[in-house]
């Protein structure tokens, strides 16, 4: 994946649309509520801007599990929402002949009996793979190499998300500061004039 300008543009646009949709700036809501709404729209924007990938589908599926998010998701995604919720083809099991599967398992098992040395290393890797599967959205249904693929993609998008949110933050804070200083100016002018 390449993080292109188009991607960042789409990402930002989606995020701002999301902020508008959840009305974070206008509605009066508690701090936690506002924070959750911002995070939700940021995540959805990331998934939408990236397109259709295993982790994006997993992310939206994970988000839609909570009832409060569903209306927002339906609003943002529109008709795509229903199609995204359908189980994707990759999670379907590939029909395999049982005899062949059994035979190959037997061979693998026989080989494992021979080399006991790599067992410790393998369990370590297994543990960490499980952990990574928990972190990457939609990771439970992925196998080893596709998991790494999706992780790569996910890391790039996360980085883009962090950069974007950071730059948004500085803009808002800087302009807020500016508005404060601007407000002070006319007051001083007024007091000067009055004198």
């Amino acid at each position, binding site marked *: *994946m*390449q*993080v292109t*300008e188009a*991607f*960042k*543009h789409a990402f930002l*646009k989606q995020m*701002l*649309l999301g902020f*508008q949709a959840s009305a*974070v*700036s*206008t509605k009066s809501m508690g*701090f936690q509520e*506002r*924070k959750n709404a*911002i*995070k939700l729209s940021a*995540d959805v924007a990331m998934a939408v801007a*990236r*397109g259709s990938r295993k982790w994006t589908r997993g992310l939206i599926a994970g988000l839609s599990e909570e009832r409060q998010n569903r209306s927002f998701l339906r*609003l943002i995604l529109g008709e795509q929402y229903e199609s995204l919720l359908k189980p994707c083809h990759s999670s379907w099991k590939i029909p395999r002949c049982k005899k062949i599967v059994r035979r*190959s398992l037997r*061979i693998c098992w026989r080989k494992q009996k021979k080399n006991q040395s790599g067992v410790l290393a393998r369990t*370590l890797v297994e543990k*960490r793979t499980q*952990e*990574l599967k928990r*972190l*990457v959205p939609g990771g439970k249904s992925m196998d*080893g*190499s596709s998991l*790494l693929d999706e*992780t*790569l993609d*996910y*890391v790039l998008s*996360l*980085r883009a998300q*962090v*950069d*974007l*949110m*950071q*730059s*948004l*933050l500085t*803009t*808002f*804070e*800087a*302009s*807020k*500061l*500016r*508005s404060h*200083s*601007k407000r002070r*100016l006319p007051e001083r002018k007024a007091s000067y004039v009055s004198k």
Partner: protein
Amino acid sequence: MQCLRAPLSDLSALEGQRACAEWQQPGQEQSDYHPYDADYCMQSLCPVETAFRALHGCNGGGENENHGNVHGSNDCFSNAWPDIVSSMHCPVVGAAASVEETSVNASSSSSSRKRKSENNRRSKENSGGSDGKDDSNCKRIKEETGVGAATPEAKRPNKRKEESADASKENDKAPKSDYIHVRARRGQATDSHSLAERVRRERISQRMKYLQDLVPGCSKITGKAGMLDEIINYVQSLQRQVEFLSMKLAAVNPMMDINIDSLFGGREINPTCKSASIPMIGMSSELLDQSYLQFGSLQHDMFMGSSDLLLRPNVNPAAAVSDTSLGSCLNVNGSSVWNTNLQNVYGVEFQLGRGTALPFQSLQGNLLPNNLKMEM
């Protein structure tokens, strides 16, 4: 960061080639492969390739001469893209065929694409017929498919003896047929299960290499478990950063109502836009310019376009006054505006941001010259 460029380009190249491999006819020459030979192959395969070339000198027979060059280039193909070798995509083989231009028959099997297991079975049969001494080490390279089997058969025992001394590696050589011919490594089993497993392992190690370039501070770690550890830590830290930033954004209250229509020209969900916020929008355009200049060209390009749309004539008089406040608030190391707590928190965040932004920037800079992009 030369190393960064090539592997990631290869990842996208992989996908692109999978797509086009399905459509291309065998026998068409693919000139796309050559750029990647230089970049990726040279970095990782030089010792292997030279060793192989050296050993090739000991092979007699005219038949091998042609194969020498193809071997070299094919090594690059096969080692750079082992999963193409494993898959049944014959155009790689077909390309080799066209490059070689040997006169061996395109027989009945040329049109059909046979499975690798069948190929293995056939090779086993053939090797079972002759002495099985070398077979545990190497598979023989097949040179014919069906027709014309008689004459090469006679030569094969001789060649086996010569080639058994090879320190061999994976290599899809078959010029004539549509089989994926694989030569097993010395001392490794050659049944289809272990082959598939080896291919899978190589795929995983390739992905780990890409991730190694992506995650900062991973270049020294070599084991799979340690690498995974670092990746997990990095993903967790990125996720925590997002949480933290969303918290900070929530604290910025009130947030500005940016006029999205003017920014992007797209649809707007909430058509109501407060008129009071418009003069603030005009101000923000200047801010956007300056703040993103500080963060580097990444965001700068993005926001330049948007700021042009937002620019209003009444901004300029305010510019002079706001410069000092702007400078102070964008100062990373110390700022008189913030109180100490906020400053520390903000400073850390800035550094984190810098930490991620800079490699991000270099990544972007290196990737841009590449023409291939993965479809999103």
